């Protein structure tokens, strides 16, 4: 398992800065949005690394060998720690 540098406090995925790691805590997304995220691997408890977050536009997260791009509004509905 990769070393974790979990940042203190709770925010959304959209607030995680590039190269930081975080863990998914909960979803505020709608049911079918949430199921889509889960089926693509973004599940509760997942530790991911932020690959690209420029503060505007979509973000890219990495876990294992997957790279997922998320729209900013959706990223704002995922609570992380």
């Amino acid at each position, binding site marked *: 398992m990769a070393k974790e540098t979990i940042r203190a406090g709770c925010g959304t995925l959209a607030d995680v800065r590039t190269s930081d790691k975080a863990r998914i805590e909960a979803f505020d997304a709608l049911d*079918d949005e949430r199921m889509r995220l889960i089926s693509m691997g973004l599940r509760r408890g997942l530790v991911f*690394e932020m690959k690209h977050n420029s503060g505007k536009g979509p973000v890219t997260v990495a876990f294992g060998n997957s790279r997922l791009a998320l*729209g900013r509004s*959706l990223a704002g509905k995922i609570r992380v720690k």
Partner: protein
Amino acid sequence: MRHLRVALAGNPNTGKTTIFNNLTGGRQKVGNYPGVTVEKKSGWIQRGDCELELVDLPGVYSLDASSLDQQVARDYLLREKPDVIVNVLDASNLERSLYLATQLLELDVPMVLAINMCDLADASGIVSDYAMIGDRFFAPIICMVGNKRTGTDELLDAVLKAAEQPGHAEFALSYGEELDAAIGELASHMDTAAGFRDELETMLGAERKRRWIAARLLEHDSGVWHAVGNEDIKKKAEEISQRLAYSHDESPAVMIADARYGYISGVCMEAVRNTVELRHSLSDKIDVVLTHNMLGMPIFLAMMYIVFKITFSLAEFPMRLIEAGIGWFSSMVSALWPAGHMMWVESLLVNGIIAGVGGVIVFLPSIVLLFMSIAILEHSGYMARAAFIMDRLMHRIGLHGKSFIPMIIGFGCTVPAILATRTLDSRRDRLLTMMVLPLMSCGARFTIYSLIIPAFFPPSWYAPVLWLIYFIGIALAIAGIKLLGSTVFKGESPGMVIELPPYRMPTIKTVFIHMWERAWLYLRKAGTIILAASIVMWVLMNYPGFNGRKTGMSGSEMKAAAIENSAAGRIGKALEPVLSPLGFDWRIGTALVGTIAAKEVFISQMAVVLATDNSGNGESLRGALKRNYSPLTGFCILLFTLIGFPCAATVAVMKSESGSWKFALLQFVALTLVAWCLTALAYQVGHLIPGLSG
């Protein structure tokens, strides 16, 4: 002979299609509109005394029916019940890939796990005990390297063996004590519900286990929910699911998903060891540049520029060869024809069929190259990055980046582009994207542009005029999305999530198959629709003949009178009041009407009309156009063919994909009206500028 149906299922970007191509070789049925796999595709092979029908399903992450491509895969698996499922997994992404496997496992169909790209996983330091994974998923496991063709034979052997063994009926994934109990409760309620047994048999094709249905009902799976008619059972399901949600603060769907991942994590913890820390791969380094905030967009535009540059310049030489070949063939037929015998047949052959079909076949090289470029963009993984880059912009007009992928495909052909909208997650986004897709200049329009632009403009203008036309299409699409999004299709698009697959070198075989499919479709179109249209056009041009002889008429006057008197001439004359504000004469008018059948018909039609019109043989179509019309008219032709008259294939696919004639007709009428208004505006304004209309 035994007949087996084998379905290939798996996540997108796992190399499923490569394996399918390896298995079937060239012996696959070319789908009507290839492109991204959003439709299932069949291929047949023979192995021993067994005939295998292989079905390549759209790549999906799960069997939830949230988008249409997932529904296609799911419907096939549930209703047609294949004999064996081959689940293709990505070796370097096992945990995520196995999520679908847990769902497939519950379908009671023998399964074979094909682990693809084993070499990449080895190289990145992932050590997996595949035997153990196979054991836990009750399926034989085959290691494959799809693009090196390893494992193909072993996979076929495993499929044949699996077909002989009964399903893993004993396996039932536990979702945890409480959920299992709830499912049991609902399942026993089904037993007591009157007549429900019979309903089960009919509604899902094959008899499903009650437990499976009960679990799907608790998940609120929309497919199963709608299939079940018994209100009593649904009420009970709702009641239990609310009770669970209340006590866990989480919906049963998420709890079940968590349980699936729990099972997978358990297996992977034992079987997969990552010997190397997560690190920046080459793909990540490329992405730093290609998806860069400032650089991403210019690089994307440069990429598109290169695509069209390749299409234009590489196609030039083969196009000239084909043109010369057709010219030679046409003059051979004329020369060898016995003079005075059935001259109408000669005219039909030379002026109708060879001029019409030949005029379209000339553009085959550019079509093939255009689709080669799109195939490379798609298979290299860049397409997903384009969606990423465009997301910010698309967001501003009320869609998200994923809608941009069908738009790029639309530069090839509108029909597969409309099919590609199946990957979008909401109906609103799908319809909104579909409505504007014909404004992306497709390959057939491109052939019109490459006929018209060099005919009327000096070489230094070629590129700017072409860009202008593409740009007008894109700008109109944006305006259309804005307008429709705030009126007809109100609402918000769901959040975007899209996988950025690692960059890969597309295999020559994959690109070649893609190109071949397109070339074949194009030639088929030339041999059917365009052939028929050319013949119809020739007949309309030549009948009824002109009999009113007058003294003192020269040969060309006679000919002009004959054309005016022909059916095409009369139709054109009738249309003239509508066409003259656009600067079009009756000849262009009839050709434009022909574009409803297929855009390329414009070229063949003009070839037929002008060949009949001018007496001088051997003049190229471009020369004839230049002699007859002004550059302004040329530009108006570009504008009208860009916007107006979506082709018949587009209308048909719009109807089937949107589910009603309403949207197909709305699109057709709206686009044609806009085309008329804008072209009239362009012509009337352009007319005032001296030198343009000369």
